[in-house]
């Protein structure tokens, strides 16, 4: 039985610099008037009201590693050289998933439909960055736990859809993490709904 840890409210501060950076702000080059800055930050503040970060994480033992394949407990198989390499030194894996919730997606649509694409774009960028930060928070949570077992997490994480770790792997991750408990579903194209939802995998290895 895989124990999934659910996080109902993930606490992070608004990552203003990351949001600016995501929107293409180039330090030292991009300039804003006070009005433009105030408008953007008002949008960020408003968007933050519609984001509720939830997450889930669970640990699974690695049973076998081959050059192009990793077998995890629960008969989970990933046929991916990239993942096999990524987990080279790991004995376990951490599955993690997070969502910014459906409210923000509805609000983005609403803004775009009301000819307020500027707000929609800022909302979209904030939600993306917040959900990414939520995954970092989950990693930090588990890193703290595994350190007491003299283990550590890999510094990075890997998401399905990159290199040869195909997007359909998101299905088993989504099911294992019981993402439906967070209100997240997978569509026929293996895309998470609501949109600002992510899953990822990290390795757990000895210190």
């Amino acid at each position, binding site marked *: 039985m895989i124990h999934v840890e659910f996080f109902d409210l993930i606490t992070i501060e608004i990552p203003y610099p990351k949001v600016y950076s995501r929107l293409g702000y180039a330090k030292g080059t991009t300039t804003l*008037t006070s009005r433009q800055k105030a408008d953007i930050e008002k949008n960020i503040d408003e968007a933050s009201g519609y984001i509720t970060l939830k997450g889930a994480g669970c640990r699974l033992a690695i049973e076998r590693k081959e050059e192009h394949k990793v077998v995890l407990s629960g008969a989970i198989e990933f046929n991916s050289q990239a993942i096999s390499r990524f987990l080279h030194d790991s004995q376990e894996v951490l599955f993690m998933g997070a969502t910014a919730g459906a409210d923000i997606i509805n609000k983005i649509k609403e803004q775009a439909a009301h000819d307020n694409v500027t707000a929609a774009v800022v909302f979209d960028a904030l939600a993306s960055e917040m959900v990414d930060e939520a995954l970092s928070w989950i990693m930090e949570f588990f890193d703290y736990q595994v350190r007491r077992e003299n283990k550590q997490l890999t510094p990075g994480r890997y998401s399905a859809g990159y290199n040869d770790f195909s997007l359909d792997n998101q299905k088993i991750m989504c099911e294992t993490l019981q993402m439906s408990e967070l209100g997240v579903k997978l569509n026929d194209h293996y895309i998470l709904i609501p949109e600002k939802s992510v899953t990822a995998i990290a390795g757990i290895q000895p210190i």
Partner: protein
Amino acid sequence: MKLTSLLNTRIVILDGATGTELQKSGMPQGVAPEKWVLENPRILTRVACDYRDAGSDIVYTCTFGANRYKLAQYKISDVQKINTRIARITRRALGKNTLIAGDIGPTGKFIEPFGPVPFDEAVAAFKEQIKGLVAGGVDLLVIETMMDIQEARAALIAAREVTNMFTMVTMTYERDGRTLNGTDPVTALVTLQSLGAHAVGCNCSTGPGDMVRFIAQMKPYARVPLLAKPNAGMPRLQKGKTVFDMSPKEFSGYAGEFAKAGINLMGGCCGTSPEYIRELKKQLRNKKPQTPRRFFLSALSSSRTHVIIEKDSPLIIIGECINPTGKKSLQKELREKKTALLRQLASEQVRHGADMLDVNVGASGVDEAEMLKEAIKVLAVNTTVPLVIDSSDIRAIADALKLYPGRALVNSISGEKAKLKKMLPLIKKYGAMAIVLPLTDKGVPHTCLKRKKAVNEIYRKVKRAGLAKEDIVVDALALTVSSDRQAPGETLNTIRWCHDEFDAATVVGLSNISFGLPRRSQLNSAFLAMASSCGLTMAIANPLSEGLMHMRHSSDVLTGKDDKAVRFIRYVQEESGGTSSKSAALPASPQERVYTAILEGNRQEIEQYIGEALKGGIDAEKIMQEGMVTAINTVGELFDKKEYFLPQLIASAETMKQGFEFLKPHLKNTQGHREKRNVIMLATVKGDIHDIGKNIVALMLENHGFHVIDLGKDVSVEKIINEIKKHKSPLIGLSALMTTTMVNMQDVVDAVRKESLDCRFIVGGAVITKSFAHSLGAEYAADGVAAVRVAKSLSARKTE
């Protein structure tokens, strides 16, 4: 010897790691340590005695995980009994000359508002463990390795509900000096010492080098002794075993620094053993303990930051906007139990410089107790600054105080006897501070003299409840000047008396002063400066008022509260743009104003400027071409040079669109112009639901005269083909965000070729590259500006 006496004479020595000592003695991996030690009591006895013999004055019981949640993982349910038995064995082993601390570790669960475990349930779980430890004969309690301040609060409240026993609390901080949820050492200290912890400190996670910094940070604000249990440096793998990189000598080499920083109790955590404790004892033998530097501390905290309230320190602004009075949208939201606007108001106020936030949710049709609890839960997670719980409902205040993961300020208590009797024990129990309204059962005193009398009366009762002057803030009662011209003077006199004679912090509800008058913001700002010069500590005010915030910072400089004007200079710098902002000069002519409005994305004023330009006799076509089109082209150039980023580009495009709609009736050849427009069809391909990029492209193309037919997202090949045939669109723009959906672009291209339709493709999206586009026989556009450029180029070629 009693612990309190011991603390006055020397630095008290704690024990080191227990788990690793048990493992050395044969405890296997994967077992419940608490169960294992009960099966192997001789080993438990030996480990405890080893620490005693090494010099530990206090030895922790081996009950770190002996709570209902952790024991349930091993299917053990008799929590109280296990704790009692371990405490008894430890007592028997150590005799009466070594103090035994009942060890309480984290549950591994998050407590509301940060997690699913109800606060009361967490308190009950800790009480169960504590009762067992107390029955087993421990001398004191230690709540340790807490990474969530709310869990530490729950454990401490549980301890206080069971016993008055000396209770120490230690949090575990990462090297950056914060817990996972962002609590720093001083913030934790403010919360925990006000809640009744007898000693506060840190353990685990870092070695002594980092931990000594945390002790030094806490010492100036500590009313209680400080303790530390660092790891023996950082762990590393050596011949398949985890070892820590510090020897006992290196570890104890930090003893002098800890003593200098003000440590009162010290031991070791992961990687330490009796040998480390022996060396530590040697090094600390002749070091004098520094007693706590404060008897009281006026300070407030959230879970992530704190505000220290000191005489003549810069004025504190409490944001007043979370109050439904006169705000219909907030009233509606509260009635519907929604919190989006609440969160937005909080973020806005903090961003504009509020140091704390007043939270008032009282409105007709709102269950105040329920809603306040909800608001506190949401704001405790979503905002960084301490909260002021503003309610007249005692039940609502009690629930909010219990749940708030920090030290809150209660707004307010007064001399109304029945209410005061209920409120003071609550404030004491949850370690809060309170605003004292100088009201009595007889009503509002209008003169300073009467207010002084009322404050003194209330303060006597405050003291009797075990609270200090540092735990209160006197409301100097700002009453409306329009109904009583003496009112401001009486308020200022009350502030001056509190500052010069009574020696207590003060607050005013600033906006009251200007009620019923025009230009309220000006009056509020002026009164703020006057009150500040009399020694006002904090004001409940609107931080979104620019004039008020300017006045706040200016008056801090002029009253000597902002030494060397450091804060003022930083404020001015931030105001002029932490993110490289600039103030635009006011353009001279109406047409220039139109140009600038588009350049700046000023949707609010574009119509006004176009109207002024038209009134000034400027031809609509000229406004369009020389003002608007020139501006939007400049915006494109600025975006290409990265001088503009995405929100600026889109804001300008939206302003252009709005301006064009406004100007359209005045353009002579609008109809003809429309008919001649180039048509482009846009779609996000099948399987892809991401359309924000495509929406930006659509907006940009419309502004550059294209007639855009937007088919939306997740569009099938069949639909695209049918629409191309229907509209005879010569240009097709396709977007995709995912690697899995970008391949569907090929299907569209193949279908178009199969049908021999005469059209060209422009493709884009996060994962699309130029080479992928070319492999499809399509043009590539990296962004909205590039899409316009490519579309114009393809249209021109088509025309030729």
